[in-house]
C-alpha cells in the first residue's frame, strides 16, 4: 500500500512536470507569434510607405489646375487652368481667412481630390488638411474631403504655403491605410 502511494505521488509529479512543459511550450509559441506579428507590422508600415506622401504632395503642388474656372470671390477671379495648384490653394486659404465661404472653391477642391484619388491606391483614405501656422492646430482651415479622424497607422507629409498677410499656412497630406475609401 505504501509503495502504491509513493508511485501515485511520482505519477502526479510527472503529470505536473508535463503540464509545466506544455505551458512553457505555449509560452514559447506565443512569444514566437508575437515577434512575427511585430515584424509583420513593421513590414506593413513599409508597404504603406510605397506611396510616399511627400513625393505625392510635392508633385501635386507643382501641377497645374488643369481646367479654366471662375471663382465667385469678392472680386471675380478667373483661372486659366495653367496656374500651379499651390498658388491657387494659397489664394483659397487667404480667402477663407478673410471670410469667403468654402463653397466658392468647391470645384477647385474637387480637382485636388480627383487628382489625389487617381494617384492613391483605393486601399488608402486620403485627407488634405490646411492650417494657419499660428501654433494652434485644433481647427483646420480647410479639409479635403474631411479632417483625418484616425491617424494611428497613417503616413503624412506637409508643405508650407505663403499667405498674403505675411504668415504662412501648413498643408498636410494624410494617407490612412486603416480606413480605405470607397
Amino acid at each position, binding site marked *: 500500500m505504501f*509503495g*502504491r502511494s*509513493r*508511485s*501515485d505521488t*511520482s*505519477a*502526479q509529479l*510527472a*503529470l505536473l*512536470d*508535463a*503540464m509545466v*512543459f*506544455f505551458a*512553457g*511550450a*505555449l509560452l*514559447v*509559441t506565443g512569444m*514566437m*507569434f508575437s*515577434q*512575427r506579428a511585430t*515584424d*509583420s507590422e513593421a*513590414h506593413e508600415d*513599409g508597404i504603406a510607405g*510605397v*506611396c*510616399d506622401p511627400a*513625393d*505625392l504632395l*510635392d*508633385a*501635386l503642388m*507643382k*501641377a*497645374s*489646375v*488643369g*481646367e479654366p474656372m471662375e471663382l465667385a470671390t469678392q472680386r471675380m477671379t478667373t483661372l486659366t*487652368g*495653367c496656374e*500651379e495648384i499651390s498658388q491657387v490653394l494659397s489664394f483659397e486659404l487667404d480667402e477663407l481667412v478673410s471670410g469667403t465661404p468654402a463653397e466658392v472653391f468647391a470645384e477647385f477642391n474637387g*480637382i485636388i481630390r*480627383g*487628382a489625389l484619388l*487617381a*494617384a492613391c491606391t483605393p486601399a488608402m483614405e486620403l485627407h488634405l488638411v490646411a492650417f494657419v501656422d499660428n501654433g494652434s492646430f485644433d481647427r483646420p482651415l480647410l479639409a479635403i474631403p474631411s479632417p483625418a479622424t484616425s491617424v494611428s497607422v497613417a503616413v503624412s507629409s506637409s508643405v508650407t504655403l505663403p499667405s498674403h498677410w505675411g504668415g504662412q499656412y501648413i498643408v498636410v497630406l494624410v494617407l490612412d491605410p486603416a480606413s480605405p475609401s470607397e
Partner: protein
Amino acid sequence: MSWDDRAVGGFFEDLTVLLFVLVGVAVVVSAGVWTAQDAVEARTDKQLGLLAHEILTVVLSEISHPETPGYLPTLDRIRSLDLLGIAEGFNSDCQFCISVAEHHPERAWLCNATRGWPEAAADTGFVSGFLNALDSTGMTALIEVMVLVW
C-alpha cells in the same frame, strides 16, 4: 512486485504525461516551422522591395534629370522612353513591370515595359514615385512611375 514500487502510477497516468509532452513538442515545432517560413518570405519581400526601389530610382533619374534643376520632361519624351533598356542595366535575373501613368489633369497610360510573366509570381515588390511633366498644352501634369518586381 518490487518493480511496481518504482512505477510512475499506471498506464493512464503515463498516457496523459505522454500526451502533454507530445502536444507541447508538436506546438513548438509547428510554430517554429511557420515562423521560419514567414521570416524567409518577409526577407524575400524586403529584397524585392529594395530591388524595385533601385529600378524606380534609375527610371526617375532618367526621366527627370535631377542634375538639371528646374528641368521638366514632356509627356512625349516619357512616351518614347525605352524603359526595358533602362532596366536591362541591372545585373539581376528578376522579372519586372514598369508603368508610367498620368493622373492629372488627364488620366492616361503613358508607357509600359514588362520582362517575364507575372502569373507564377509568389513574392512581389512594389514601389511608386511621382513627378511632374509638361503636356502638349503647356500644363504641368502629375505623373506616377510604378515598378512591380517578382
